[in-house]
C-alpha cells in the first residue's frame, strides 16, 4: 500500500489570540493510504479538531506541508481551498449541519451546485440519497426527519461529489447507540463499496475499534499509532 491519499509532513498550527500564542499542533507527520479507515482520538485540547480542519482543507497549517490526493494544499488561497473542499473532501458533522429551510434533495444538491454542475444534478443527488437508504423522504425538510435520517442525508451530501476522503467529526455523537451503529455501518459500507478513505474524529473507543488504524493525539503531537 504505497498510494497515500494524505501526506502530512511536520504540520504545525499556531493560533494568536490577542497577545497569547497557542500552539495547537506542534509537529504532526502522518500518511493515510487510499481506502483506509482511520480514526483520530485524543482528549480535548489535544489538537484533533485543528488536525481535522487542516486535513479537511478548512484551514491552512502555519508550518509544514500537506498533500491531498496529489495536490499540495498548504500553498493555496481561499477560493482554491473552497474548490479542493468541494471536489476532494466530504464532511459529516456531529450536529448534521443541514440547511433547515431546504429539502433533503436540495441539501444534497448543494455541493453539485457549487461545483457548477447543472445538467443531471437531480439524478446524481437522487442516486446518492438512494445509496444511503433514505427511502421516500427526499422532499422532507431536516426538521421533519429523525436524527439518523438527517445524518444519512449529510452522508449523501458528503459523498455526492465522489470525494477522495470523507471526514467525519463525531458522526454518532448526537445519536442513540442503535442508530449510531447503523450510521457507522453505513460509513464502513460506503468505504467498502466506493473505496472512499474514511477519517473519523471521535472520543468513542467503540467507534475507534471499528477502524483499521487509530491515531492518538496529545498536546499537538502524535502520541501513538495502532
Amino acid at each position, binding site marked *: 500500500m504505497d498510494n497515500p491519499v494524505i501526506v502530512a509532513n511536520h504540520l504545525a498550527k499556531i493560533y494568536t489570540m490577542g497577545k497569547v500564542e497557542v500552539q495547537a499542533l506542534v509537529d504532526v507527520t502522518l500518511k493515510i493510504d487510499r481506502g483506509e479507515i482511520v480514526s483520530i482520538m485524543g482528549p480535548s485540547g489535544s489538537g484533533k479538531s485543528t488536525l481535522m*480542519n487542516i486535513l479537511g482543507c*478548512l484551514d491552512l497549517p502555519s508550518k509544514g506541508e500537506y498533500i491531498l490526493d496529489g495536490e499540495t494544499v498548504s500553498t493555496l488561497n481561499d*477560493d482554491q481551498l*473552497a474548490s479542493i*473542499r468541494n471536489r476532494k473532501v466530504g464532511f459529516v458533522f456531529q450536529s448534521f449541519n443541514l440547511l433547515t429551510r431546504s429539502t433533503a434533495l436540495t441539501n444534497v444538491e448543494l455541493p453539485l*451546485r457549487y461545483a*457548477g454542475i*447543472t445538467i443531471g444534478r437531480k439524478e446524481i443527488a437522487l442516486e446518492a440519497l438512494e445509496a444511503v437508504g433514505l427511502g421516500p423522504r427526499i422532499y422532507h425538510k431536516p426538521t421533519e426527519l429523525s436524527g439518523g435520517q438527517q445524518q444519512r442525508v449529510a452522508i449523501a451530501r458528503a459523498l455526492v461529489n465522489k470525494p477522495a476522503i470523507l471526514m467525519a467529526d463525531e458522526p454518532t455523537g448526537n445519536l442513540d447507540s442503535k442508530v449510531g451503529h447503523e450510521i457507522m455501518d453505513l460509513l464502513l459500507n460506503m468505504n467498502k463499496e466506493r473505496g472512499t478513505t474514511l477519517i473519523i474524529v471521535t472520543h468513542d473507543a467503540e467507534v475507534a475499534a471499528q477502524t483499521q488504524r487509530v491515531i492518538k493525539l496529545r498536546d499537538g503531537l502524535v502520541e501513538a499509532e495502532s
Partner: protein
Amino acid sequence: MNFGQSLLEALESLSANKLRSSLTMLGIVIGVGAVIAMLSIGAGAQSTITGSIQGIGSNLIFVMSQRTEGVLNPKPLTVEDAQAIADPLQAPSIAQVAPTIQGSLEITFGRKSVTTSISGVTGNYDLVNNETLYEGDFISEEQIYERASVVVLGPTTAQNLFGYVDGLVGQTVRLNGQPFRVIGVLNSKGGGSFGNQDDRALVPLSTAQMRLIHRSPNDRVDSITVQAINAESVIAATDEITQILQSRHRTAVGADDFAIFTQQAILNIANTITGVLTIFLGGIAAISLLVGGIGIMNIMLVSVTERTREIGLRKALGGRKRDIIIQFLTESSMLSLMGGLIGIFLGWLISVIVGKIASASGTPFTPVVSINSILLATLFSTAVGLFFGIYPATRAANLEPVEALRSE
C-alpha cells in the same frame, strides 16, 4: 450556481422570516412610494399651472406699475398711457389694449350679499382675455362712455348670489349700495392656479373709477393688458411699450417705474418654481428611500450573524467568496426590488387619490406618473439594495469557515 437557483434560494430564505422581510421591505415601499407620488404630483402641478398660463393666450403682455429703487418721481400707469400704447402709429405690433382696475367689494341681491373681486374693464376686455358669455352681452363702448351702472357677473358669483345662473339679465344688484343692472353672465373658465377665475364681477372702467374704486390720480389703472397682433410680434410689442412708457414717464434707461410680463416670462417663472418644488419634495422623499436602504443593511447584517453557521457550512461544501456574496446580494436586492414594485403601486395610488381630492375641491389637477419616474424609482431602489447589501455580503463571504462552523 445559476441565476434562477439563486433567486429561488433567496426567496426561500426571505420567506423563512416573513414578518421581518416585509417590515424591511416596508421601508423601501414608503421611500419609493413617496418619490413616485412627489414626482408625479410635482409634474401634475407643473402641467396644470403651465396649462392655465397658456390658456390666457400666447400673445398677451401685462404691464404693471413697479416701484424700483433709484427711480425718481415714479409715475403710475394711467388711461392715457393705455391710449398711447394703443396708437397704431407708435406701436404697430399691438392689436388691443385693455386697462383694468381691480378691487374687492360687497355685492348684494335682496338679503344675500357676497364679497368678490370687481374689475373695471374696457369694452375689448372679453376679446383680449378670451371671455365668452353664458347669456346677455358684454360691456359696450357706449356704456363706458356713459359710465353706465351695468355689471357682468362671473358664474360662481351669480350662483352664490342668486342660487342659479339662468335668466339673470335685467336683475338689479347693489355694489357698495348702488344699484347696477346685470347685463350678462360669463361662461366658466374653470379654476386656475391664480384663484377662482369664475368668482368676480366686471363693470365699465369709467364707472369703477368714478364710483367704486377710488385711485389717485383719478385715471390711474392697476394694469394694462396688451394683445400683440400675433405670437411672433410679442417681443416687438414689448419694445414698443417700453419706449412709449419710458418717454411718457421720463425715466432713465434701466430704471423703469413699470414692469412688463409676457406669457412666456410668466411660464418660465412658474416652471422654475414648480421645478424647484418638485426637486425639493423629491429630495425629501429620497431621504426616506435612503432610510429604507439602511434598514435593509441592518437586517442583512443581523441575518449574516444569525446564519454564520450556515455560511460556514456552505464554505465547507465548496462555496467560494463569490457564491456567498451573490447569495446575500440576491436577497438584499430582491427585498428592495419587491419593495420598489409595491412602492410604485403605492405612489401611483397616492397620486391618483391626491388628484381626486384636488378635483373634488374644485382644482382640476392630474398627477402624471411618468415612465421616467417609475424607471428611476425601480433603478434607484435596486441600487439601494445592492449598495447596502454589499457590506453585509462581503462580511459573510470573509468569514473563516472554521470559525463560522464552530459558532452556535
